C-alpha cells in the first residue's frame, strides 16, 4: 500500500480513501496502513451513490463489520490480506484538475482488484478521458427503427416489454446525459409506480424534486427512499389531492413560492363505482382533467418564468379506444363504467395537452403528452386485476414505463416540439381508429368544461 502511494505521488497525484464507517474506524485504518494522506468517511454513502456504487452494489458495502472485526483488522489483516485489504473495494476513480475522469473501476465481487498499472497510467498527462456516455451506434439505431416498424402495428408487441426492448435500441443514450441541478420538477402521484420511478430518475439527474402525494406517510417514505437511493437531498413532499380543488389551490400556493421548471401530471385513478368529489365532480374527471387543468393554470406564471418550462401529461394507451366525449362527462345520466371513464378522460388529457400547448405557444413552455405502454404498477394490479393476471409476464417494469416521462422532462432541446404525443421517446399518432377523431367544437367545449368546473365558487 505504502509503495503504491509513493508511485501515485511520483506521478503528481494523491491517493484519497473513502470509507463508509465512522471516524474512529478511519483513524484505526489509517494507523494500520501507515497512510498519511486524506481519508474520508461517508457513513451515509452519499459519495458512494454519486459514484454509481449504489442500489445493487450498495448492499455489498453497507453491512458494517462487527466491532471485533476491528481487532481482526489490526492483528490479522496484513497476514491474511482479506478483511483489511485496502484494494478490496467498491471502486477507484482517477479525476484530473480539468474535471476529466481518466479511470473508473467498480468491483463486482468481493476481492476484485483493479490493475494498479492502469491506475498509474491514468495519472499520466496524456491519459485519455473516459467518455461516460457514448453515442448510440448508428447500426443499433437503424436496427431499432427497423424492428419497430415490424412490431408497432401490433399493439401487444409494442406496448409490452418486448416493445420497450426493441424501441430502446433506437434511443439516443446521450439524451439523458444531462445535469438537472438547476431544475425544480413537480410530479403528482409520485409515491409509487411510474410517478415514483420518474421522481427517482430526475433526482438521480440532480434535479430538485417535489413529490405531490395525497398521503403524508406514503409520500414521506417515497421521498426518503429516493433521497437514500440517489444521495440527492433536494427531494421534498407536498400534500396534494389533485381531485380536490381546494387542495390544488393550497398546494399551488405553497409550491409557487419557488421556481417550477417541469410539471408532470401523473396521478391517476380507475374507480369501480361512480364517486363524486367534494366539488361535485366525478372522480376520474376531477383527477385526470379538472385538477391538473387548475394546477397548470395556477403554476402558469412560474412555468413561464422558467427559461425551459415543460408540462407533461401521463396519459394511457387505453385512450386510443375512445373518442373525446363531452356528452355527460360527469356520468350523471350514464350507467357508470370505470374503464370507460378512465379511457375517456385519458383521451381528453391528450387533447387538453394540445390545447395547453396552443395556449402557451410563443412562451418558453412546451406541453406534451405521452403513454407509458403496459407497465406492472400497483395501480394496474389493483384496478385491472384480470388484465394484470393475463399480461403480467409481458408487462414492462415501472421504470421502463417512466422512461419517456423522464426523457420528456430531462432531454435537451425540448423546445422543438410542443403539443405532441409520445411513446417510447418517439412522437406517435393520437388516433389508431377512424371513429376517435374529435371535432373542433368538442375541443373548445373541453377547455370550457375545465374552466367552468375549476372556477372558484362565488361565495
Amino acid at each position, binding site marked *: 500500500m505504502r509503495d503504491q502511494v509513493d508511485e501515485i505521488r511520483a506521478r503528481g497525484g494523491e491517493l484519497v480513501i473513502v470509507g463508509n464507517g465512522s471516524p474512529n474506524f478511519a483513524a484505526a485504518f489509517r494507523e494500520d496502513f501507515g497512510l498519511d494522506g*486524506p481519508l474520508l468517511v461517508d457513513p451515509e454513502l452519499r459519495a458512494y451513490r454519486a459514484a454509481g456504487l449504489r442500489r445493487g452494489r450498495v448492499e455489498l*458495502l453497507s453491512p458494517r463489520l462487527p466491532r471485533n472485526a476491528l481487532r481482526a*483488522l489490526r492483528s490479522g489483516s496484513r497476514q491474511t490480506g482479506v478483511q483489511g485489504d485496502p484494494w478490496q473495494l467498491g471502486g477507484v476513480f482517477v479525476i484530473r484538475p480539468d474535471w476529466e475522469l481518466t479511470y473508473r473501476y467498480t468491483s463486482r465481487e468481493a476481492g476484485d482488484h483493479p490493475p494498479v498499472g492502469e491506475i498509474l497510467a491514468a495519472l499520466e498527462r496524456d491519459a485519455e478521458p473516459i467518455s461516460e456516455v457514448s453515442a448510440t451506434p448508428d447500426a443499433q439505431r437503424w436496427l431499432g427503427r427497423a424492428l419497430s416498424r415490424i412490431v408497432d402495428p401490433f399493439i401487444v408487441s409494442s406496448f409490452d416489454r418486448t416493445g420497450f426492448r426493441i424501441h430502446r435500441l433506437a434511443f439516443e443514450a446521450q439524451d439523458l446525459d444531462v445535469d438537472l441541478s438547476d431544475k425544480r420538477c413537480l410530479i403528482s402521484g409520485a409515491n409509487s409506480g411510474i410517478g415514483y420511478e420518474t421522481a427517482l430518475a430526475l433526482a438521480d439527474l440532480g434535479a430538485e424534486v417535489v413529490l405531490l402525494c395525497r398521503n403524508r406517510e406514503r409520500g414521506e417514505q417515497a421521498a426518503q427512499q429516493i433521497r437514500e437511493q440517489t444521495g440527492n437531498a433536494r427531494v421534498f413532499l407536498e400534500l396534494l389531492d389533485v381531485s380536490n380543488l381546494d387542495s390544488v389551490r393550497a398546494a399551488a400556493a405553497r409550491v409557487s413560492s419557488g421556481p417550477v421548471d417541469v410539471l408532470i401530471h401523473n396521478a391517476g385513478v380507475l374507480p369501480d363505482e361512480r364517486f363524486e368529489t367534494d366539488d361535485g365532480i366525478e372522480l376520474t374527471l376531477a383527477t385526470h382533467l379538472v385538477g391538473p387543468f387548475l394546477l397548470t393554470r395556477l403554476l402558469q406564471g412560474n412555468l413561464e418564468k422558467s427559461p425551459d418550462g415543460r408540462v407533461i401529461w401521463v396519459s394511457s394507451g387505453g385512450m386510443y379506444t375512445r373518442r373525446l366525449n363531452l356528452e355527460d362527462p360527469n356520468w350523471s345520466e350514464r350507467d357508470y363504467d370505470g374503464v370507460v371513464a378512465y379511457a375517456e378522460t385519458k383521451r381528453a388529457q391528450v387533447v387538453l395537452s394540445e390545447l395547453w400547448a396552443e395556449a402557451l405557444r410563443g412562451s418558453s413552455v412546451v406541453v406534451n403528452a405521452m403513454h407509458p405502454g403496459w407497465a406492472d404498477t400497483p395501480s394496474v394490479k389493483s384496478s385491472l386485476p384480470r388484465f394484470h393476471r393475463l399480461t403480467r409476464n409481458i408487462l414492462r417494469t415501472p421504470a421502463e414505463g417512466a422512461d419517456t416521462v423522464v426523457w420528456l422532462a430531462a432531454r435537451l432541446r425540448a423546445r422543438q416540439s410542443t403539443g405532441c404525443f409520445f411513446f417510447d421517446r418517439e412522437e406517435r399518432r393520437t388516433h389508431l381508429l377512424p371513429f376517435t377523431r374529435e371535432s373542433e367544437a368538442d375541443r373548445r367545449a373541453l377547455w370550457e368544461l375545465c374552466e367552468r368546473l375549476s372556477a372558484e365558487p362565488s361565495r
Partner: protein
Amino acid sequence: MRTVKKLSGIELSDWQGERVRLEALWKERPVVLVFIRHFG
C-alpha cells in the same frame, strides 16, 4: 449527469472530523479516489 460533477458538491468528514468538499481534492492535482468496502 457525469460522475465528477455529481461527486464535486458532496462534503464529507475526514478522519479528524474536518469537512472536505470533494471538488477540493482534485483542484491542484489528479486524485486517485478509492472507495473501500470496509472499515466500520
